[in-house]
């Protein structure tokens, strides 16, 4: 990739790329919390594989963000040494794992979003983002296959599993509005041909999710007015605790390598 492809100091592009990277990073870290605690050994590996895919995506995005920023920060500094309010993930990604059902609900909602997003980014005017999306879309297709398979099993499973995932869906649904709430950054990216329009994504996301919920015999919760701003750095109480654990090693042993 030529150096000219990187538009150093492009604030809006930087912001947008951080959002992409932080979504994958935070969700990957959350899934990583399941390692050693999953309901079955097989699921332990399944969730860890998805977590590693997501962290791989985050590395590309955050490394690129460092180049755009042009202050010499690499992916590790950006991933591990920023403050709470500098993370740009949508608030849904940082929500706690809860029980396995709640983790699956969060995963389905985000997998379907990332799938639409990456399918759109493949034709991005930004070559770097297009290249990452082309790779990530294959991973994400599998993530959604895995998570939606589980959602159908749990939703259309026992009375207990149905009640639990329906409750998780009620709890997490309000956070989905933020995924599609376009601000100045999103609008500028769409205008420049860098990002797909969020309004278009919402339509296809909504019908995809609708089909999964129907198969899972789950009731689609009512939409709520927009009230979360994680993309702008205003997070729920949960992100701070997660970052404390995630950043511990880099902050205690700066530059540690192994």
């Amino acid at each position, binding site marked *: 990739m030529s150096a000219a492809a990187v538009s150093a100091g492009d604030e809006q592009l930087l912001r947008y790329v951080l959002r992409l990277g932080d979504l994958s990073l935070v969700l990957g870290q959350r899934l990583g919390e399941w390692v050693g605690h999953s309901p*079955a*050994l*097989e699921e332990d*590996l*399944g969730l860890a*594989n998805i977590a590693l895919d997501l962290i791989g995506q985050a590395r590309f995005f955050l490394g690129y963000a460092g180049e755009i920023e042009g202050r010499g920060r690499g992916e590790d500094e950006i991933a591990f040494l920023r403050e709470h309010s500098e993370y740009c993930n949508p608030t849904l990604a940082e929500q706690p794992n809860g029980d396995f059902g709640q983790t699956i609900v969060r995963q389905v909602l985000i997998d379907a979003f990332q799938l639409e997003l990456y399918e759109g980014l493949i034709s991005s005017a930004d070559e770097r983002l297009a290249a990452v999306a082309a790779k990530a879309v294959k991973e994400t297709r*599998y993530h959604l*296959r*895995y998570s939606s*398979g589980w959602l159908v099993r749990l939703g259309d499973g026992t009375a207990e599993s149905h009640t639990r995932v329906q409750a998780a869906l009620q709890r997490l649904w309000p956070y989905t509005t933020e995924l599609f709430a376009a601000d100045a950054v999103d609008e500028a990216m769409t205008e420049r041909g860098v990002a797909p329009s969020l309004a278009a994504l919402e339509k296809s996301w909504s019908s995809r999710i609708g089909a999964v919920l129907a198969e899972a015999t789950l009731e689609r919760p009512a939409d709520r007015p927009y009230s979360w701003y994680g993309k702008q750095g205003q997070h729920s109480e949960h992100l701070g605790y997660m970052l404390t654990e995630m950043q511990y090693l880099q902050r205690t042993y700066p530059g540690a390598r192994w």
Partner: protein
Amino acid sequence: MEDKNQWPLYEVFVRARGGLDHKHTGSLHAADARMAIEHARDLYTRRQEGVSLWVVRSTDITASDPTDADSLFEPARDKVYRHPTFYEIPDEVKTL
């Protein structure tokens, strides 16, 4: 009787690359065949070990009885003429 608290066991067969046969690689627990394929993908192909997967319920496999080994396999021991060692194998044949 099947244990209701445990998913049934599946045997996993992985084809390493096109042209080779599926080889038994291990086993795993899964609720059904679809889940078994997903688990097999996550457990046995995460380091690019394969291009195709088969899964089969372990209970669907009929195995020979080890106590029958004498009558099943011993008689073949002294019949060396059954080995096709009289043919020259062309260099191009890699996986015979």
